[in-house]
């Protein structure tokens, strides 16, 4: 290539220490400052982007290239021309008429906003004659979103064209870099005017820098390093929070990582790096990435805010508003994929600004509601906004341009991501603490319940022990009293039995006999008596009212009355004995009839056995005599008159019955104890019929066996029933 010709020149030194860092981050910075300015209702949207840190004031027309300096910002050297009709060619440019229409740029960066026109830019460049001057220079257009660029260079009298732009696949580029870079060959004493034609649907911004290859390499080296740090951090946050999400399954984390990835993609699109590294063969897609990823980021920011702030709980209206913004984001995403993507970008920027306002208001409302998680959320977003403000202030020249102020947008977005991650962790921590606290309280309450229960159990146990002690004490008392009473009753039994006839004497008199005496208690109201006389002997069975001790007392009365009476001459007359006993008992029990408190008496059956005449004389007071002879059972009912009761008639004459003693005959005297005993299948009394049938069956048997049979029958009948009365059965034969 030969040097370009034509144009005017003047010498100037351009010193720009920070430019090499800044300019490569310009696209992102511009966009954010644009948001901020709109937020502040500043009506000059692109003003901030026009500011460059170092301005060379003595701008004339020509750039004199110096390899040692190696970097020239061309904004103030350039002249430009608007081509509204878009029909001029390079040949028109050199004509006198059009050539004079070029306007001298007065800004560091050429910027014409959104326009349908094409723009022509011309810059005159020369190499000094003192320099070797031969070599390549690089013309960089630091705005990667331009649609179509044409660089015209006069070579050997012919205009040569180099074309580029984001409408062309990345592989077509002259220099493979995400900004547009043209190679320009120079020679000593070379002077040339370069023409650049730009046409774009987006912002018409044309920041131009001319580099020596060495300086360009240095710039790219540093820029890549800084980018590496930034993207490295963002990717680290993405993966870190993704893993947290996978482990804690909190959807806020999911929305957050989706927000990060969307933002990373947006940043890559904005810087042109996405085009360089990711979708270089798809110009169609590249042109849509910026609006698409802006609204995608907005979508996830809204979703994250809703979820993280629990907006539905704290402010249902703002929650709805955020949902509306999300719906808008989806529509704009759709729009960005149509040919109207340029419009979608403009709408997206405005939409996002209002969305951010609503997000911040929601955060503030939650903060007012004293929702702790909202604090970190607000700190994060204010850090980001502060960064934007600082950048804007630097752009306006209020703050000095340095590394911090230049990178503040990147720092701000990184801080935002980090602080949001912290706030998520804090929220989880807080919720866990609250849960722990609740659990602790629950545990405490359970413990208290347990303690109360234990106390209650203790009290109960003590009470039971006390009561048991009391019971034991009273039981001991009862046992003591019982033992005492039993002892006295046993002694009473001794006294009572002393009245009974001796078995020896009865054995002497009867050939055979048996006595069944089954008291209900130790002592009872039944008694049998036996007296021997010269001509025979008396036998009596007496059933006094009651049983136990009261009955026993009555038997003593009956016994002593009987013994006294039989000493008289009436001993062989049972009827007279009964009458005498009636009188005796009544007079001993109720000496004064008017104050009598009890009404007691007895039934009795008495037999006098005359051994001389071999007859039995029987008289009964409600006690019968049964005798069986020759398989005939006879029952002699006693008189229906008891002895000793208050209403007993003292003048009543009992009846004597005489029975001759045959060779085969058995006599039975019995109280009602055995016949009255309930039992059997239907709990009826044993009954007279059953008793008589039994006697009829056994009367011939030995008397010992008879006794056994009667007892067996009684026990079999009674089974588990309580014994109802004292039982006395007397059987005798000759």
């Amino acid at each position, binding site marked *: 290539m030969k040097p370009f010709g034509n144009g005017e020149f003047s010498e100037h030194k351009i010193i720009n220490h920070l430019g090499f860092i800044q300019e490569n981050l310009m696209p992102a910075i511009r966009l954010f400052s644009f948001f901020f300015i709109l937020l502040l209702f500043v009506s000059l949207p692109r003003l901030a982007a026009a500011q460059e840190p170092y301005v060379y004031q003595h701008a004339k027309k020509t750039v004199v290239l110096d390899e040692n300096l190696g970097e020239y910002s061309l904004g103030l050297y350039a002249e430009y021309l608007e081509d509204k009709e878009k029909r001029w060619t390079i040949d028109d440019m050199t004509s006198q008429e059009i050539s004079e229409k070029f306007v001298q740029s007065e800004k560091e960066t050429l910027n014409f906003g959104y326009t349908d026109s094409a723009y022509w830019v011309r810059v005159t460049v020369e190499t000094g004659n003192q320099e070797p001057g031969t070599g390549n220079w690089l013309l960089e257009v630091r705005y990667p979103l331009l649609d179509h660029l044409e660089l015209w260079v006069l070579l050997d009298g012919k205009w040569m064209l180099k074309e580029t732009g984001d409408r062309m696949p990345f592989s077509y580029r002259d220099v493979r870099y995400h900004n547009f870079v043209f190679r320009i060959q120079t020679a000593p004493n070379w002077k040339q005017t370069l023409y650049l034609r730009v046409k774009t649907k987006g912002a018409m911004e044309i920041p131009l820098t001319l580099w020596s290859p060495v300086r360009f390499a240095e710039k790219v080296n540093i820029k890549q390093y800084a980018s590496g740090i930034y993207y490295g951090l963002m990717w680290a946050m993405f993966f870190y929070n993704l893993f947290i999400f996978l482990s804690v399954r909190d959807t806020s984390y999911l929305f957050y990582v989706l927000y990060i990835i969307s933002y990373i993609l947006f940043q890559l699109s904005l810087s042109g790096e996405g085009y360089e590294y990711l979708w270089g063969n798809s110009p169609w897609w590249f042109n849509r990435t910026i609006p698409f990823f802006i609204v995608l980021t907005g979508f996830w920011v809204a979703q994250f805010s809703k979820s993280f702030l629990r907006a539905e709980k704290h402010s249902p209206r703002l929650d709805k508003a955020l949902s509306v913004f999300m719906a808008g984001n989806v529509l704009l995403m759709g729009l960005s994929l149509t040919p109207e993507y340029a419009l979608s970008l403009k709408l997206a920027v405005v939409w996002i600004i209002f969305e951010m306002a609503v997000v911040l208001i929601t955060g503030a409302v939650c903060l007012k509601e004293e929702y702790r998680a909202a604090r970190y959320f607000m700190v994060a977003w204010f850090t980001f906004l502060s960064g934007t403000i600082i950048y804007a202030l630097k752009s306006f020249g209020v703050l000095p341009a340095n590394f911090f102020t230049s990178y503040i947008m990147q720092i701000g977005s990184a801080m935002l991501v980090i602080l949001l991650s912290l706030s998520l962790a804090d929220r989880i921590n807080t919720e866990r603490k609250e849960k722990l606290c609740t659990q602790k309280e629950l545990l405490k309450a359970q413990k208290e319940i347990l303690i109360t229960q234990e106390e209650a159990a203790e009290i109960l146990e003590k009470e039971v022990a006390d009561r048991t002690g009391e019971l034991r004490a009273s039981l001991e008392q009862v046992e003591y009293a019982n033992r005492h009473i039993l002892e006295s009753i046993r002694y009473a039994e001794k006294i009572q039995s002393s009245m009974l006839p001796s078995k020896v004497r009865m054995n002497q008199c009867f050939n055979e006999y048996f006595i069944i005496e089954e008291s209900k208690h130790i002592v009872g109201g039944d008694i049998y008596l036996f007296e021997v006389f010269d001509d025979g002997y008396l036998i009596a069975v007496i*059933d006094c*009212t*009651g049983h136990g001790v009261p009955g026993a007392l009555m038997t003593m009365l009956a016994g002593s009355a009987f013994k006294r009476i039989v000493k008289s001459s009436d001993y062989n007359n049972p009827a007279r004995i009964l009458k005498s006993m009636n009188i005796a008992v009544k007079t001993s029990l109720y000496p004064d009839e008017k104050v009598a408190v009890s*009404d007691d008496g007895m*039934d009795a059956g008495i037999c006098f056995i005359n051994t001389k005449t071999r007859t039995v004389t029987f008289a009964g007071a409600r006690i019968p005599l049964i005798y069986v002879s020759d398989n005939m059972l006879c029952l002699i009912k006693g008189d*229906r008159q008891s002895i000793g*009761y208050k209403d007993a008639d003292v003048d009543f004459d009992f009846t004597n019955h005489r029975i001759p003693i045959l060779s085969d005959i058995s006599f039975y005297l019995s109280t*009602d104890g055995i*016949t*009255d005993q*309930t039992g059997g299948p*239907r*709990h*009826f*009394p044993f*009954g*007279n*019929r059953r008793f008589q049938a039994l006697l009829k069956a056994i009367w011939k048997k030995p008397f010992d066996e008879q006794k056994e049979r009667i007892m067996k029958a009684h026990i079999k009948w009674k089974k588990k029933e*309580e014994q*109802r*009365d004292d039982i006395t059965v007397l059987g005798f034969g000759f």
Partner: protein
Amino acid sequence: MDNLIIEETKYTPLVRFDSDSHVLEIRGESYPENIFEFYDPVLDWINAYLEEISENQSVIVNIELIYFNSNSSKILMTLFSMLQDAAIQGKKIVIHWYYDEENDISLEHGGEFREELKSLPFHLIQVQERS
């Protein structure tokens, strides 16, 4: 006047004296340790009842006692005597003495009461085994 209802126990019978329908019932067994404690209220009620009812009031007394001791027997006699006195005054009192054919002791006692109480309508009624 209030009805008298005493539930049956092991030692004492069921007492159900209904002053509205004029049916007086005693059923079960009777051998209390202290006879007066149980029967005093019963006799008191009968006393008051007999004084309250009109001269020609019909009264049915149903007695079905499986077993009773000699003390209870004396009390029953007292009770029947009171009823007999009322019957003599003109009140239409009838005693139904129920006994099971298997229970000859009950029949015997009933018979003895009937013989004693010449002026009191006293019917011995045999009951069939209830399933």
